[in-house]
């Protein structure tokens, strides 16, 4: 994970399939594509905005207490997204409310703040968080689409055990692809 500043963070170092971060939303909100899009989109916005803000503040953030500062910034971004969705996308909000509020503790965002945003310039952070966020959204979409598609013939796919099985099969497929001769 030395070089995070190129497109490898979307695919090879994908937050979900390589670092196994953000598995809680990956398993919980992916029963169908539209919920996966809603949570993926919200996470993407919070990831990019909070990381750019943390990068801009990197010389201000006290070295003795970086984590509380990250949480303040990420919490602020998440709460603003929650309020905006309640005001302008209320129907979507009602379906995903619980998972929207816990975007604040998404490990992908915090890990990115600590590994990239605190060290890099605003521009590099912006590019990197867009790529990482795109990788996360793609992972949610992939699991969501697979579960929704399979659940018509196999209702298990839309239940929690189905989430584990399908995410595991996709991870195995990714590993098989990555380690091909």
């Amino acid at each position, binding site marked *: 994970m030395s070089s995070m500043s190129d497109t490898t963070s979307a695919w090879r170092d994908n937050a979900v399939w390589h670092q196994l971060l953000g598995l809680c939303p990956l398993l919980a909100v992916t029963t169908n594509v539209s919920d996966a899009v809603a949570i993926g989109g919200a996470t993407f916005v919070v990831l990019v905005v909070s990381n750019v803000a943390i990068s801009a*503040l990197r010389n*201000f*953030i*006290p*070295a*003795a*207490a970086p984590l*509380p*500062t990250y949480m*303040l*910034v990420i*919490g*602020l971004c998440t*709460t*603003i997204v929650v*309020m*905006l969705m*309640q*005001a*302008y996308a*209320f129907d979507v909000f*009602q379906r995903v409310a619980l998972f929207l509020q816990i975007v604040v503790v998404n490990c992908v965002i915090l890990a990115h703040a600590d590994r990239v945003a605190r060290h890099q310039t605003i521009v590099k952070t912006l590019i990197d968080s867009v790529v990482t966020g795109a990788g996360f959204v793609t992972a949610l979409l992939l699991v969501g689409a697979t579960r929704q598609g399979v659940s018509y013939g196999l*209702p*298990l796919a*839309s*239940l929690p055990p189905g989430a584990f099985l399908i995410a595991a099969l996709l991870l195995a497929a990714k590993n098989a692809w990555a380690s091909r001769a």
Partner: protein
Amino acid sequence: MSIAATAWRLGLAGAVVAAALGGVDALTRARIQANEQRVRFVPLVEVTGDARLANLRGSSAPPLTVCSVSGAPLYSVFVRSARGYAGPIELLIGVDAKNRLTGVRAISHRETAGIGDAIDTRKSLWIHAFDQRRLADIALIGDGGSIDAISGASVTSRAVIKGVHDALEEAVGAPPRNCSNVVDE
């Protein structure tokens, strides 16, 4: 950096965040309240089939008795918990002034996906079988009533039927209740 400087910066960050949240809250509060009001009575519209109920004021927590402006009762709405196959099934039940069911909805349940979850209107129209029924109809066809069982889910079907039946029986036997909400004509 000294502890004082760290604390000062954290405090400043907290203050800025609080101010930003206050600002966004002020901008969105009116819209959010309007949205919440818009959906508050949607379940009541569902179980009564009467779109006018979307504009009710006052409490939206059952039991409710919705009356016309002249004070005549139009609908009673109850919640009832039934013991399903996989846990409690919470039912919202609408009854008109002639003790006829206007509609039933399962507002929360844990019934098996693909089988017992047919009580959910997102999965199946089964629960509409209760619409316009009277107390005597509310039993399985095999037991002399008019309701078909969900295939493969007789425990779930019987649980819902018993819940609706008991709630309606209580409503029929109960004295007239005070109006809780009034419909604007």
